[in-house]
């Protein structure tokens, strides 16, 4: 599994992903770590199948006892099905995840880790020097869903928003935005259910100062590509499965 430092100024944002050794049929995922001394946050730590590679990668950067917080943007298996194993590896941590999904996420195994439900309106988490905001992203795509914003690093960890389906050997950052939209279109049209939720999120995110938008799958957006993404997403019609069914019925 590859790792790359995205931000390093008093604390670090570290990317983990592009796991060439993962089982072939599972989707490639991006994991992130905010390393802030003895209080570190692991974001969307991933599925059970990539757990060992992820654990080994993380130990290259931090002592396990310093991982005090875990964040799960929503309940999907590629996000947090490894919870039962983290629960044994990091029994002292807290899991920040949507309050709505607590009863569901606990099915993955959560006997030692403390579950901290994020309220609908979002919340904040302060590590040592780092202040992070859990931003609501409900219905993008899960009914209880959050992203993580760091105003100092100007990084938005955007969960499934901005995700692209690409092979693990693909690059780290978006280089050709127009070409990249081909890898994103179906994902966003099919997984994102609501234009209303999408536009509400875009309006809120446009007010943030963002240098890097880091999704849970695919490449990271930098600089002007963040704005390009927001414009592209705004123009995209999502929730297409129902419309397709309607079209099929009409035909």
């Amino acid at each position, binding site marked *: 599994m590859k790792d790359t430092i995205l931000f390093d100024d008093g604390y670090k944002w570290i990317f983990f992903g592009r796991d060439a050794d993962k089982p072939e049929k599972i989707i490639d995922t991006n994991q992130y770590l905010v390393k802030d001394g003895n209080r570190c946050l692991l974001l969307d730590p991933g599925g*059970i199948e990539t*757990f*060992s*590679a992820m*654990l*080994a*990668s*993380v*130990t*290259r950067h931090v002592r*396990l*006892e310093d991982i*005090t917080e875990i964040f799960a943007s929503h309940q999907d298996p590629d996000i947090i099905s490894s919870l039962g*194993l983290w629960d*044994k*590896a*990091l*029994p*002292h941590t807290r899991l920040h995840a949507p309050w709505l999904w607590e009863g569901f996420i606990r099915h993955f195994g959560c006997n*030692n880790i403390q579950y901290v439900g994020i309220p609908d309106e979002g919340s904040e988490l302060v590590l040592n020097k780092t202040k992070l905001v859990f931003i609501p992203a409900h219905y993008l795509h899960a009914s209880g869903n959050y992203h993580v914003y760091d105003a100092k690093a100007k990084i938005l960890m955007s969960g499934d928003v901005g995700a692209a389906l690409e092979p693990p050997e693909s690059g780290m950052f978006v280089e050709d935005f127009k070409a990249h939209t081909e890898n994103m279109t179906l994902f966003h049209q099919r997984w994102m259910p609501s234009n209303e939720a999408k536009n509400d999120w875009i309006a809120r995110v446009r007010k943030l100062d963002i240098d890097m938008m880091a999704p849970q799958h695919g490449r990271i957006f930098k600089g002007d590509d963040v704005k390009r993404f927001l414009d592209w997403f705004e123009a995209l019609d999502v929730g297409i499965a129902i419309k397709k069914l309607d079209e099929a019925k009409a035909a």
Partner: protein
Amino acid sequence: MEKYNTYKRPFFVSAATVAGNLVSVMHIAKEISLAAKNAKAIAERAGEKANGFRPITDYIDEMGYETMSLVNAINKEALEVSRIAVNELRAKEVYQKLLSAKEYIGEDVPVSVEKLIQEASERLSEHTIELEKDKARLIHLLEEIKNQMRASAVISTCSRVEATQAEEYETSLQVVSENVDAASKKITMIVNDCDDLLAHH
């Protein structure tokens, strides 16, 4: 934090930590190779005065590369051991859950359930055997690195002696010998920590 300090690490965590710790060994091994290249350059400049030192630089260089390749192999093995340990843990959980299900059923446990329990028990045994084999292989590889570091300690002693013959180049070559010695000690310390991690299971 007290919770973390008092709990017994699962084996898969220790194995993954070994893989993580070895990254610093890799950096140190690279430093050894760099030291060897510097030593070669100094020995070239020193000409005949460094005749005894020159062959040692080849050895140091070779040792740096061998350490790096060994660390790569150990890293892969440690990751594999961690993966197998996770599989063993999952197999153990399946087996225990099936036993609980049998308890729920009470009397007249269906043959199909007994068969499932039997299969789960066999799978668990297979994982345990595989884990023990890989664990032994990992410990063996760690022992190999330690052997290499013991040899390195001898070489750095020899190189210190040879450096004394290099007249005005002595100080520079002594620095190289000390660097190699310090690097070997650091690697041995890290590998010992890895051994300790594995020994506690």
